[in-house]
């Protein structure tokens, strides 16, 4: 047992009965005997405990209850007035929001099971197959060109990199706009949000370098490391150093930005959940989808990064599955608890339906618009996760809904 383990144990000894308390206790005591520093630490801890025991409980103010009850009575009166005002609408299953969303859910399911949806799924499976280490070692790359699915036909060439970067940039900018508006705070923490841009720039720059290296091979954008053997030693050395440095910078930036981004996104989503604005939810889902999808395409170009593509695809798949569950649950709760959605919600549902129908009618567009399904799913999935995990403003919304309500 080292100092840290011993201290952790001594702080909450009875907490882990399964770990073999007596043995752990013996080890901790042995450590204490041998470590003067930890003995001093324990003495200080005991002093802290004694000091804590001496801290008196505060008495609430004498009028605390009276004030609470005054506010509670006002709330109760408000609610009664609201109930009296609310006209009796049609039953929940005939309300427009429910009908529209149910239709969308049905369309989304149909789309998922359609040839385009299945192709996209099988494409993802093919990507998974391409990640087989044995396939990596083979001289010929796995046949990814000519696939029918979402990414099969996508092989970036020079100018496409620009397109995809524009796509990523748009996604990021959209996110930034929403986040800065939603979080209502600027200044230093706002600047942190620019980190995603920096990260994307790093990714794109390294992508550009790789692309430039690949351009040396007239056959096309084959991954450059396969060409390394044919180039001069100096070039190879410089390229490797450059890639390593950029990779390091990129990874750091990505790690930082993911942290800042997640934190900020969570805060914004909390507010969105609080506002229950359908348009807002939709936009966040859309921008995030564009961002993720762009990154997925970008990563797909270079074999070592393909694992990231796969991770993104799998993540999106999981999120969309969760999204369906969260969506249905949210629809049920909205309709049952709030008495039908507002106009924005209805418009969103109709727009989502239109996108899905379009995707069904045009198989080629459909492969890209398969996205349409994921957009709403992703948005709702994130919201669902936020509610599920219970982070932030509306955390107590995660508390199970009670039937008697």
């Amino acid at each position, binding site marked *: 047992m080292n100092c840290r383990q011993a*201290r*952790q144990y001594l*702080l*909450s000894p009875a*907490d882990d009965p399964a770990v073999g308390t007596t043995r752990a206790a013996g080890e901790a005591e042995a450590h204490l005997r041998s470590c003067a520093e930890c003995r001093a630490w324990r003495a*200080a*801890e005991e*002093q*802290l*405990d*004694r*000091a*804590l025991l*001496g*801290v*008196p*409980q*505060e*008495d*609430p*103010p004498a009028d*605390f*209850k009276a*004030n*609470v*009850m005054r*506010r*509670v*009575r006002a*709330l*109760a009166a408000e609610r009664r007035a609201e109930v009296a005002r609310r006209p009796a609408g049609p039953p929940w299953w005939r309300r427009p929001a429910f009908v529209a969303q149910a239709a969308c859910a049905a369309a989304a399911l149909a789309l998922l099971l359609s040839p385009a949806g299945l192709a996209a799924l099988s494409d993802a499976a093919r990507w998974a197959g391409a990640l087989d280490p044995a396939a990596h070692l083979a001289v010929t790359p796995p046949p990814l060109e000519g696939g029918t699915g979402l990414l099969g036909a996508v092989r970036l060439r020079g100018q496409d990199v620009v397109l995809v970067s524009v796509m990523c940039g748009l996604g990021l900018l959209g996110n930034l706009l929403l986040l800065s508006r939603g*979080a*209502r*705070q600027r*200044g*230093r*923490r706002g600047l942190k949000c620019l980190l995603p841009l920096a990260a994307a720039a790093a990714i794109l720059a390294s992508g550009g370098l790789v692309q430039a290296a690949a351009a040396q091979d007239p056959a096309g954008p084959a991954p450059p490391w396969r060409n390394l053997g044919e180039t001069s030693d100096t070039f190879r050395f410089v390229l490797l150093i450059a890639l390593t440095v950029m990779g390091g910078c990129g990874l750091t930036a990505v790690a930082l930005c993911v942290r800042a981004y997640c934190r900020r996104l969570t*805060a914004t989503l909390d507010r969105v959940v609080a506002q229950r604005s359908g348009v807002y939810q939709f936009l966040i889902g859309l921008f995030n989808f564009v961002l993720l999808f762009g990154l997925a395409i970008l990563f797909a170009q270079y074999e070592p990064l393909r694992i990231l593509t796969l991770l993104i695809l799998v993540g999106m798949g999981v999120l969309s599955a969760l999204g369906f569950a969260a969506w249905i649950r949210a629809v049920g709760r909205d309709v049952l608890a709030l008495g039908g959605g507002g106009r924005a919600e209805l418009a969103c549902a109709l727009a989502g339906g239109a996108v899905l129908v379009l995707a069904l009618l045009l198989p080629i567009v459909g492969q890209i618009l398969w996205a349409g399904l994921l957009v709403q799913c992703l948005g709702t999935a994130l919201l669902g996760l936020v509610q599920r*995990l*219970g*982070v*932030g*403003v509306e*955390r*107590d919304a*995660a*508390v*199970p*809904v*009670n039937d*008697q*309500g």
Partner: protein
Amino acid sequence: MTQGDQRSDAEVVRAVLAGDTEAFGLIVDRYERRIFNLAYRMVGNRADAEDVGQEIFCRLFQNLHRYDPARPLENWLMRMASNHTLNWLERKRVATVPMDPREGEPGAAHDPPDAAPSPAEYTEGREAGALIGAALGRLPANQRLVFVLMYMEGYTAEEAAELVGAPRNTVKTWVFRAREALRAQLAHLFESPPLGPGKERS
């Protein structure tokens, strides 16, 4: 816990939901001390603690229909209270100019807990309480919360983890860090012999 009225929490909640708003007073009676103390330890002064405490009860009232009577009301309420105080601190931090880049630094750190006039025999405890309160105010909010839950409200690490909705090991790490930080901040208190009468601290 019940005072006078022997109805269980779930029965009281049912009565409130059925329209007996006054029955809510029983719930306030039962938990006001807990809630107020939690809020006080979290926000660091009585005025804000009163506001936060009232808001928590109002929130409880508004969300009462979501309560699952099969579970203890206390846990649900404490969870709500934990979330609410964290959110309150976050809102306050956002509202005050964020010139300080340190994460999770509560504004409350700058308002030392106000010590109400108290009998002489409580002075020592009050003083240590004020020092500990000020030191608590400098902890990140989540560490402060689990620390308060575990060492001032008497929950185990397991229960505290449940209340704040974080994994148990995370909670243990927070508490570990909180204790380290508190000991470091209160080092001057401990180096000298334990607080004796007449010991002056500004």
